[in-house]
């Protein structure tokens, strides 16, 4: 097999709906029919506005959310497969149908291989546990170390990997700055020697001067430990920097997926073009001369998404076809995928 095709994680037709109380139908359609794969050792970036489902996708892959339907494959093994319980009825309204129980693997062994780094470090660390306990808990759950000294050595080793002092193990999270807390969160994720890490906006809560430190550290670790990342962020310039490929999401669907600099040079989907032009560039002359595409209106509600292409309500090139038909997610150039009728 070609090294390029060494796929670690793949999802097929993944859907995640959140039921809404007092509402008939599927509720919030946070992730709608997404198929994507991640190669071993690469970084796949995910960008999109808030509410587009990028975090939900990351968490559903890890099964921190129970998927509604679809298929998740990790390293050749199917860890989830379920049929879609929502089918359009005769009148076009989504109907709940009975489907067989989804096939689901025992997740505990996979939790060792798949980890997550959260956005807000102060909210994701238990304030009543010391940093040593937080990192050690992961080691205990998977029973990785028999002797106490080995366990302590590993905790110290992890702390120094992320650039903290070994005596910090006895401190509590509130004694650290935001950047340091995020390092603790990274050390916790690394504790069990994972292969795949979902980085859910790991730097957006940090100060500008600290962001680049953490980005560099994540890159170094990937090289050293051979990690695979799913990097979720809304800051396009950082995502472009760290990712090999970028997926652009809009309202629960993947609208474009391409190699990161290719996406920058040659964005195909009108939404990607808008997103790229909306990112403020730290260069005054360039930003004066640049032509921006400014979208009208706000992102529609995922509870009641537009028919057809979900972007058609804000798209400057929308046609009748876009309103009625869901565009297919196709490969238009080698490794450059998009979902748009006008391509």
């Amino acid at each position, binding site marked *: 097999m070609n090294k390029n095709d060494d796929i670690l994680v793949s999802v097929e037709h993944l859907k995640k709906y959140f039921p809404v109380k007092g509402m008939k139908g599927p509720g919030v359609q946070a992730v709608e029919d997404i198929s994507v794969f991640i190669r071993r050792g690469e970084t796949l970036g995910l960008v999109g*506005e*808030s509410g587009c489902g990028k975090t939900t996708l990351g968490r559903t892959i890890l099964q921190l959310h129970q998927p509604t339907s679809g298929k998740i494959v990790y390293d050749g093994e199917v860890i989830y497969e379920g049929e879609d319980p929502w089918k359009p009825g005769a009148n076009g309204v989504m109907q709940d149908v009975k489907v067989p129980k989804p096939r689901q693997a025992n997740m505990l062994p996979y939790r060792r291989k798949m980890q997550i780094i959260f956005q807000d470090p102060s909210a994701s660390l238990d304030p009543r546990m010391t940093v040593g306990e937080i990192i050690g808990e992961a080691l205990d759950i998977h029973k990785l170390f028999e002797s106490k000294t080995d366990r302590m050595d590993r905790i110290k080793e992890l702390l120094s990997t992320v650039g903290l002092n070994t005596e910090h193990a006895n401190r509590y999270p509130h004694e650290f*700055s935001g*950047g*340091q807390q995020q390092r603790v969160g990274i050390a916790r994720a690394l504790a069990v020697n994972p292969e795949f890490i979902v980085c859910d906006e790991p730097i957006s809560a940090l*100060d*500008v*001067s*600290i*962001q*680049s*430190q953490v*980005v*560099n550290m994540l*890159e170094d670790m990937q090289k050293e430990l051979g990690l695979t990342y799913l990097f979720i962020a*809304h800051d*396009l*310039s*950082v995502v*472009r*920097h760290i990712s090999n490929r970028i997926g652009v999401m809009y309202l629960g669907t993947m609208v474009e997926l391409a190699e990161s*600099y290719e996406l920058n040079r040659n964005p195909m989907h009108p939404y990607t073009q*808008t*997103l790229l*032009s*909306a*990112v*403020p*560039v*730290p*260069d*005054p*002359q*360039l*930003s004066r001369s640049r032509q*921006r595409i*400014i*979208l009208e209106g*706000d*992102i529609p509600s995922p509870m009641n998404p537009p028919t057809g292409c979900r972007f058609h309500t804000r798209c400057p090139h929308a046609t009748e076809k876009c309103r009625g038909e869901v565009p297919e997610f196709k490969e238009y150039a080698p490794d450059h995928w998009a979902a748009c009728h006008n391509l």
Partner: protein
Amino acid sequence: MEQERKTEKLLEVKDLQVSFFTPAGEVKAVNGISYDLNYNEVMGIVGESGSGKSVEAYSIIGLLQSPGKVVGGSITLEGEDVLAKTASEMVNFRGSQVAMIFQNPMTCLNPVYTIGNQLTEALRAHNKEISKEEAAKRAMEMLEQVGINNVEKRMGQYPHELSGGMRQRVMIAMGLICHPKLLIADEPTTALDVTIQAQILELMKELQKKNHMGIVFITHNLGVVAEICDKVSVMYAGKMVEQGSVDDIFYNPGHPYTKGLLRSMPRVDAESYERLIPIEGTPVDMLNPPEGCPFAPRCEHTMKVCLQKMPPYVNMGREHRAACWLRIQEEMKNRQEESETEGSENE
């Protein structure tokens, strides 16, 4: 007339010092900041969290909360001393002369009153003679100006019924409804998505042109600064380390901190991968700031003098100055060379 107003000075901040008296000791949150702002100008204030950029803005509008106190310096708006105003004078001053918009519109809009109610209240608080109908009419005009459609319906809605971008627009409308001369924007787009951020920045530029106001724009996003600002002040640990026009700051930065900030961001025009160059270390502990230059512990060019004395400002061009010993060293070298060449000519 328009042309005249353009060059007139609107706001002058001189050697402003603000301290917080906490149980753990005095925190000098703002330590000697000076700048001028003219009509029609946007001044960007850049810095990390804790650098004192918001505290500085709060003292202009008199919203500094205990234990914070202005301990020195002056703030002058159109020749009037802002710090000398009494509490009741400040109430009138806020809103009519200076308005402020905040990062999170939800904390600034009252959740139990309708949009219309809050907008007309702002108007009628400053002008008792205005009738309810007249106020409602002006409020609707203002909402239209900030790009909200269906204004009659919006007037009766509550803040939670609006999206984030729309709430930010309402807050801008509320700030501008009494036609202030100065608008202070404290990270107005940080909580918004990029596409909505682009809309709001465009709107602010447009409104500024129309009303000829001055804007103090606080942000940590250098991209936004490049987009909207005319002048920039870079703050670090309560001190202004560099000040100049946007072009000066972006193309000819004089302070290592400014250079570091620019270098640590991924380049927009990068065609291939380049490793980021971060600023090492952590921000200053404001309770025990280092002696001398606050940036010295993180600076790659630290010299002995940096650890002992705060450097004075060096003029690097018209309106461009930086506080760094490196620049002083350069200046002295230049002068020496000049005098040497002069000396040799005399011989």
